[in-house]
């Protein structure tokens, strides 16, 4: 059975003085996701609505946005399960808005990529997997889908524009855990900074919001523990000017 739900969607185009919200009524079924509803708005009501999406199954991390004040992946957020008469959709926080629901992920990726964390894990394979004949094992990618949701949920990122951020710090810890040829001393020096691991104030919003069970706050605290251990042993940054 289909009924309609009201959507109040953030609108902003380059050159606008200020953002505003537009209201749309969208037919909703039991399995309609927020992303389904937004693409329906584009198709039938306002083709100028801009949003970013790709895979529709929580793998690509491109449809991160705020729905009713919480950061989610729109593709796996069921509208009916939200249980609200009006659904408010806004872009992620702490990132420049390019258009409507699309934010500039450039600064996020610049920080994230600095850790240079390899994508494929070596320490863990896919548990219980049955690789095809001729395939020796199933590889497991890192959990982080680089959606930027953790940075949006983080209150510190809201006040410190130079904060490295939960995703990048979690990536540093993964490099420290499992280097796979990455430059560990460099990554640790990146994190051992007043605007790095020490800037976190333990709100744990990043961990709670993460749609991919990365636990960025847990990684940051673990990173702190190992940085404290290194200072205690008087090996703060290992060879300064580390090389790869």
């Amino acid at each position, binding site marked *: 059975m289909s009924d309609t739900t009201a959507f109040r969607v953030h609108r902003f185009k380059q050159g606008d003085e200020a953002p505003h919200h537009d209201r749309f009524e969208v037919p909703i079924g039991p399995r309609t996701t927020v992303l389904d509803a937004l693409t329906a708005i584009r198709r039938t009501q306002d083709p100028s609505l801009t949003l970013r999406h790709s895979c529709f199954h929580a793998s690509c991390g491109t449809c991160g946005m*705020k729905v*009713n*004040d*919480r*950061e989610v992946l729109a593709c796996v957020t069921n509208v009916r399960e939200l249980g609200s008469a009006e659904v408010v959709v806004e*872009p*992620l*926080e*702490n*990132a*420049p*808005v390019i258009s409507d629901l699309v*934010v*500039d992920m*450039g*600064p996020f990726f*610049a*920080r994230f990529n*600095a850790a240079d964390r390899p994508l494929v894990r070596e320490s863990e394979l896919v548990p219980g997997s049955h690789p095809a004949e001729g395939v020796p094992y199933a590889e497991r990618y890192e959990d982080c889908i680089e959606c930027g949701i953790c940075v949006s949920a983080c*209150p510190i*990122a*809201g*006040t410190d*524009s*130079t904060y*490295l951020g939960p995703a990048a710090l979690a990536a540093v810890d993964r490099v420290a855990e499992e280097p796979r040829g990455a*430059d560990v001393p*460099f990554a640790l*020096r*990146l994190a051992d*900074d007043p*605007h790095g691991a020490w800037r976190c*104030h*333990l*709100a*744990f*919003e990043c*961990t*709670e*919001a993460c749609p991919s069970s990365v636990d960025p*706050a*847990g990684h940051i*605290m*673990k*990173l*702190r*523990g*190992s940085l*404290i251990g290194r200072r205690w042993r008087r090996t703060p940054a290992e060879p300064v*000017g*580390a*090389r*790869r």
Partner: protein
Amino acid sequence: MTERAATTDRTPARPARRRGIMAWVDVRGRRLGGWAFILNRVTGLGVLFYLYLHLVILSQLAVGPSAWDSLLKNWFLNPVFLVMDVVLLAGLLIHGLNGIRLTLVGFGLVVDRQRAMLLALGTIGAIMLVIGVLMFISHGG
């Protein structure tokens, strides 16, 4: 081999949608850890305010015994003041107990138990608050 500087380009191309200090007190959409974060800041400021208030009140001792006795009689035994005592105790418990959790977790200890620790310390704090209120009532009544 190339030497790399441990800095990244952290300057956004255009201003971010950033709530600023409001992100620290905005309760919309916050989860358990976020509420603890907000309460820690609010109670921290409250306890700081109380510290100065406490010094101002103690300065009455310098005025003389009659001034202090009058303060006791007219203010400290007033039910409104007792309610403020309860608020103060709640603030101290929240800030102190959550501070224990933050100190442990901040050093990388029991990180995977931080949520359980928050709930456990919250329960202990609630019990201590109830005991405190009962003591206020029995002594102030």
